[in-house]
């Protein structure tokens, strides 16, 4: 059992948990993730590690409610426990002094981009960060990102905060202004990562994205997380999760992530109904709208 020692909403539907996991806290590096299972009948899902504190033996995870499991997770409070948390999984981000790095975080993906941005900054890079969200309420980790960036740009889809538009608009601007960019790191929804990849491909800027396909064990055993990289199958859990954006077949990723959509929607509908019945009050029903996967949400 892994105890939640602090839980707080960062935005509607996005919650940060501080979890007692001393072994993981000691080893966690930027770019890595955990797999967790909440209770005996629960599924195993990969979740972003936002930060860790080796001295206190804690890790921070950030969860966006999307399907049943993430909604259930976000209903947990300080003092509750999670049955299984395993990690840190995946290869860490490759941290070096590249020069100028643009770090792009979309939605809850910002939580995964943040530790990488911080490490890149510590390694001596000039870090220009772009954070995008649907609206003002969903912009997360702004002070944290600002603290590790030489410049922070924010966009919202509806213009309710900072600049109206998409993260790619800001990236385009940087390129058009003649900013020399040595590396782009993008973590967010698949459509966003694909759009970033298209922008940088033309400019020949090395770009890394963090993929979040369907996973079970996270150690290479099941092969469910295979992604097409440069026409070849690779396992996101052991070969990734970060890959060269220009080699990723995003269409295959979208297709494979849709494999259980029917089941996910059914789970979510049953969960929502159970919640409504339990509370007798629709206002308590969750904020999420569909059974979309965590990976597609961020």
């Amino acid at each position, binding site marked *: 059992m892994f105890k939640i020692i602090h839980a707080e909403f960062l935005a509607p539907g996005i919650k940060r948990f501080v979890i007692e996991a001393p072994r993981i806290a000691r080893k966690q590096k930027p770019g890595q993730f955990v797999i967790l299972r909440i209770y005996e009948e*629960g599924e*195993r899902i990969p979740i972003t590690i936002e930060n860790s504190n080796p001295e206190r033996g804690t890790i921070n995870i950030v969860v966006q409610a999307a399907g049943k499991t993430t909604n259930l997770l976000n209903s947990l409070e300080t003092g509750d426990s999670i049955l299984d948390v*395993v990690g*840190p*999984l995946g290869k860490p981000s490759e941290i070096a002094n590249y020069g100028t790095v643009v770090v792009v975080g979309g939605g809850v993906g910002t939580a995964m981009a943040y530790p990488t941005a911080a490490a890149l900054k510590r390694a001596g890079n000039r870090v220009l960060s772009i954070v995008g969200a649907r609206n003002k309420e969903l912009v997360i980790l702004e002070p944290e990102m600002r603290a590790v960036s030489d410049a922070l740009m924010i966009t919202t889809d509806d213009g309710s905060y900072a600049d109206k538009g998409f993260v790619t608009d800001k990236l385009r601007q940087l390129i058009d202004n003649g900013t020399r960019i040595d590396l782009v790191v993008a973590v967010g929804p698949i459509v966003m990562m694909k759009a970033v990849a298209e922008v940088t491909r033309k400019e020949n800027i090395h770009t890394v994205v963090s993929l979040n396909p369907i996973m*079970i064990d996270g150690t290479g*055993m099941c092969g469910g997380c295979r992604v097409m990289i440069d026409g070849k199958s690779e*396992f996101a859990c052991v070969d990734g999760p970060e890959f060269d954006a220009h080699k990723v077949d995003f269409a295959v990723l979208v297709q494979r992530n849709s494999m259980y959509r029917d*089941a996910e929607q059914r*789970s979510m509908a049953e969960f929502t109904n159970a919640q409504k019945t339990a509370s007798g009050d629709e206002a308590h029903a969750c904020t999420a709208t569909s059974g979309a996967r965590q990976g597609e949400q961020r």
Partner: protein
Amino acid sequence: MSTTAKKSANPLLPKERIKVPRQLMPEQPAEVRAHNFEEVNLGYSAELAQQEALRCLECAKPTCTDNCPVGIDVKEFVQRIVIGDFLGAAAKIREANVLPAVTGRVCPQEDQCEGKCLLSKKVKPLGIGYLERFVADYEQRMGTHVVPNIPPTGKKVAVVGSGPSGLTVAGDLIQKGHKVRVFEALHEIGGVLVYGIPEFRLPKQIVREQIDYMREMGVEFETDVVVGRTVTIDELLEEEGYDAVYIGTGAGLPQFMNVPGEHFNGVYSANEFLTRINLMKAYKFPVYDEPMLDLHGKDVAVIGGGNTALDAIRSALRLGARKAYVIYRRSDAEMPARAEEVHHARQEGIDFQMLTAPVEFLSDDKGWLTAARCVRMELGEPDASGRRRPVPKEGSEFDLPLSVAVIAIGTSANPIVQSTTPGLGTNKRGYIQASEETQRTTRKGVFAGGDIVTGSATVILAMGAGRRAATSIHEYLTTGDW
């Protein structure tokens, strides 16, 4: 042992023993079991077991024991069954094998003990596996495990992986007085015994009971630890104070065929397919949250001819598949699966497409599998494995309509431990180098065995490696010599 000239308890003369027919294993009727996950074999009664035990010829030089990877004293335990001392028989097996209820069910006996049984020269071999299973189950039902009281040595051993080889090492070393802690990456103990082998062949309750017994003996288990990621081998040795480490991390990454369309929705690796069913209980969705594709009325094929392939396709049949095919590129004779599983699968109505291989998967416009494009093969000259090489027959291409395809063509080495342990030698294929005699690796105090050393093999071979490792770990801990 065979050296003591004991008077036989068996009332029958050898020539009479040969006349006793091999006792059939009671089993669920094929048409019933094809629709449930209950165990296929029901087990011998005491009467059947004693009748079968009478057939043992009590050879002066028992080849059965020589051909057992863990060296079970078959003759002795079978004699104890003859006289009705079933617990004594179980204790005899336990001297060599910490998981008798498991091996009695999943060992390929025809290639080992029973394969060399003297009886098989004239009649059917002694049902050694069935007898082993009987006494292990009897012992379990009686609930009379003896927990030995052993003085502690003060030494600590870390076992990485809780599959058959890790459990064997743990069981053997705890009985030598060492402290043993087993680390498991998944949330359940048992490795392939819980995520891979289905309920109808090895009930999970049996595995849990064997593990509970180990807990009673003092073995500690820690789940959710991926050694190499959560903690490294070096940290176990240097910071956590372990005196030796055994690596038994198992098979590893599933292999794919690298034919077009393997990424379509509906194409699974056998590991994923079986893990969803066995470990995650996806077939009980939505009671359990992990989903899997609904197989009711669907056409499903497995590609491969090993035990894993048969486990997958027989699971698909039980989950409502309309057609369930095995697609295997060689012929019956080369199939690596246990004979009993092939027999059971045929009884259940699995359609074996032998000498056939997929060359491509086809899909609809949304990326969902619709068919496998296959070719028929013929056997040519022997290849490196000594088996005749399958060669495609020209013009034999055909499309087999399918909703789900499961790829069960083997695994390759999982790199996590190797890549995070400096100085740990590996072979060309990435498996850990270990002495065949002592299971020592190139790192002092680090031993390895099972599939992570040999590549995909069987439960009992992994247990054999575990036994050898336990012996040499004990020697190392006692003498300090490397």
